[in-house]
């Protein structure tokens, strides 16, 4: 991915940049809002990581400018103001995701992966296939092989989200936000328990490979590929 990182704190910038480059992404860095806006309009980026509080021009203003001139790059906003109102404001201005500081690098990378693929999917798809598992998005039914698997509504939402991001790591915070709609997580075991139950339904009694994997320290991944 070609990524633009607009962040005024030099330490955070170099840390994030190094982490992204280590995972094979190409990263351009910018330290203030005006410069960031200029770069974003001159080059074609897949994803822009945009700090909300920047010198010269704040992140919200950069975002509005980008959206009004029709840039299609995905934008992930970073902020110390992680509360719901700030988040809603950011999403309404056209951000694709919002991440509160401080964050784990893995969380940022998982979210960047998720938003960079979004849009390629979802709107047009009626059916998702992962290995021998098939999700009918219109009838909300799951089959593995010839057998239908019965899921509760929440389990369906969970599986759908994992399937839309198949072969990517999905973090617990992402699941809480997108599947449950919670913005904070005192809900300690909630995600783990539900993933565990879902795993029971889609893996037990089936001979195929394990599909719903726990990635230690990061989250979960739905994948049909063998390790």
């Amino acid at each position, binding site marked *: 991915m070609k990524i633009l990182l607009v962040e005024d704190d030099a330490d955070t910038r170099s840390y994030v940049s190094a982490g992204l480059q280590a995972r094979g992404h190409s990263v351009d860095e910018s330290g203030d809002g005006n410069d960031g806006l200029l770069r974003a309009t001159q080059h074609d980026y897949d994803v822009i990581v945009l700090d909300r509080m920047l010198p010269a021009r704040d992140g919200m203003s950069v975002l509005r400018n980008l959206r009004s001139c029709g840039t299609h790059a995905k934008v992930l906003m970073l902020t110390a103001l*992680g*509360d*719901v109102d700030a988040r809603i404001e950011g999403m309404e201005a056209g951000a694709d995701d919002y991440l*509160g500081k*401080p964050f784990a690098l893995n969380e940022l990378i998982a979210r960047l992966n998720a938003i960079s693929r979004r849009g390629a999917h979802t709107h047009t798809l009626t059916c998702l296939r992962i290995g021998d598992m098939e999700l009918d998005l219109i009838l909300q039914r799951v089959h593995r092989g010839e057998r239908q698997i019965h899921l*509760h*509504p*929440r389990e369906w939402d969970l599986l759908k989200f994992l399937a839309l991001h198949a072969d990517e790591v999905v973090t617990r915070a992402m699941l809480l936000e997108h599947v*449950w*709609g*919670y*913005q*904070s997580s*005192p*809900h*300690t*075991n*909630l995600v783990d*328990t*539900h993933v565990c*139950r879902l795993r029971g339904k889609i893996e037990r009694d089936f001979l195929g490979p394990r599909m719903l994997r726990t990635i230690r320290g990061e989250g979960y991944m739905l994948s049909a590929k063998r390790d």
Partner: protein
Amino acid sequence: MRLRPGMTARGGLLRSAAFRLAMLQALLFALIALMLFLVSWLAARHYIENQLRQAIADEAGEMASVPADHRAAAVQRALSQVPRNPFDYSVFDRHGALMVGDLLKQPRAGWSVIEQHKAGTGDTQRILVFANALDDGSMMVVGRDLESVEALDSLLKQVFSWAGLAAVVLALAGGMVTAGGYLRRVEAIAGAASRIVAGDLDARVAVTGRNDEFDRLAFALNGMLERIQMLVEGLRQVSNDIAHDLRTPLTHMRQRLEAAMDEATSVESYGKACERALADVDSVLETFAALLRIARIEARQRRAGFSQVHLSRLLEALVDDYQPLLEGEGRRFIVEIASGVRVHGDALLLTQMFANLLENALHHTPPGASVALKLHAKPQGCQVVIEDTGPGIPAAERARVLKRFVRLDAARSTPGTGLGLALVAAVADLHNIVLKLGDAEPGLRVQLDFVEQPDM
């Protein structure tokens, strides 16, 4: 900031607005007294003069009816009567010479006032006279001393002067007393404000119980102070809490990192130390985020951004989420949710509140315990009860556990920030929900009463 001392000192009376009002009032009273005096004085004078003229005219008529040759004798007789009648008489001949009588100068015909020296004394007396030209060319004059009228006049003037003065003095004194009363109450408010400025946040404006405007002002101010004090105390509390409760995990982390530097021998042991340090940092961050969340909820304007929330559905979704967690460890989860219950509120915050209560039940009950969630519609609003058969909370601790960072000794060994119930209390307060912790015999009973608001 200091309040101007002149405004609170006793000497401030003369400069107070209330005193100026009293002065104005006194002036108004004086004007009214003056007007009253003028009207009654003129009326009384007019009446008495008319009476006088009537009497004189009658007397003159009587004298004129005496035949011409007996007039001098009649005048003479009248003047020598003892006691004298109050009238003065004179008859002048056609040449204007005094024939008989005690009025020495001939006036013009008709009504007039003449002045002459009183017989025997040097005093000038004013006499109202009626001169009547008679058929034989002589002139009959009858008069009466104006002394009585003038005496009444001066008496009236005197009485009204004193009464007017008394009215002004009384008005002024009354005004001063009123002003003093008002000033004292303003001073009481200013005094309370000064004490608060000086740092005594417990200071309140005294309420007299008369339920007047000042009492209403005092109530409003006290209400405001109550809220400000709560916010300030909250802030103070948070600072203290942060100092105490974040210091502990940070200290642990420091010790662990130090120990790792001294003792770790392999990459693997360094990795372990880093992992534990990360976990410590995450717990500090989580505590910090929870604190901020509570502070933000507490600072929020009541009922701002509220909408209709389908409470039954919200709870059903939560039950779906928590059922596997609760039943996973052999607990019984009893659910009774009345359908179609709606409340006015913030769905996200309500979800968080109920989730916290269910998490509490999850963390503080042993496997095999029962947890119940009930929603009942009530005539006025609705009621949610969450009960468990765990160890419960001793009655003496129930109010305390709603505060930040309060963890009962029994719970110290389990993970948690000690902020869960504080957040529940904050959300409940924002929604005007009456939150009661009670005894489920055995276990904890949390009762939440949603009271319908009249303005909804």
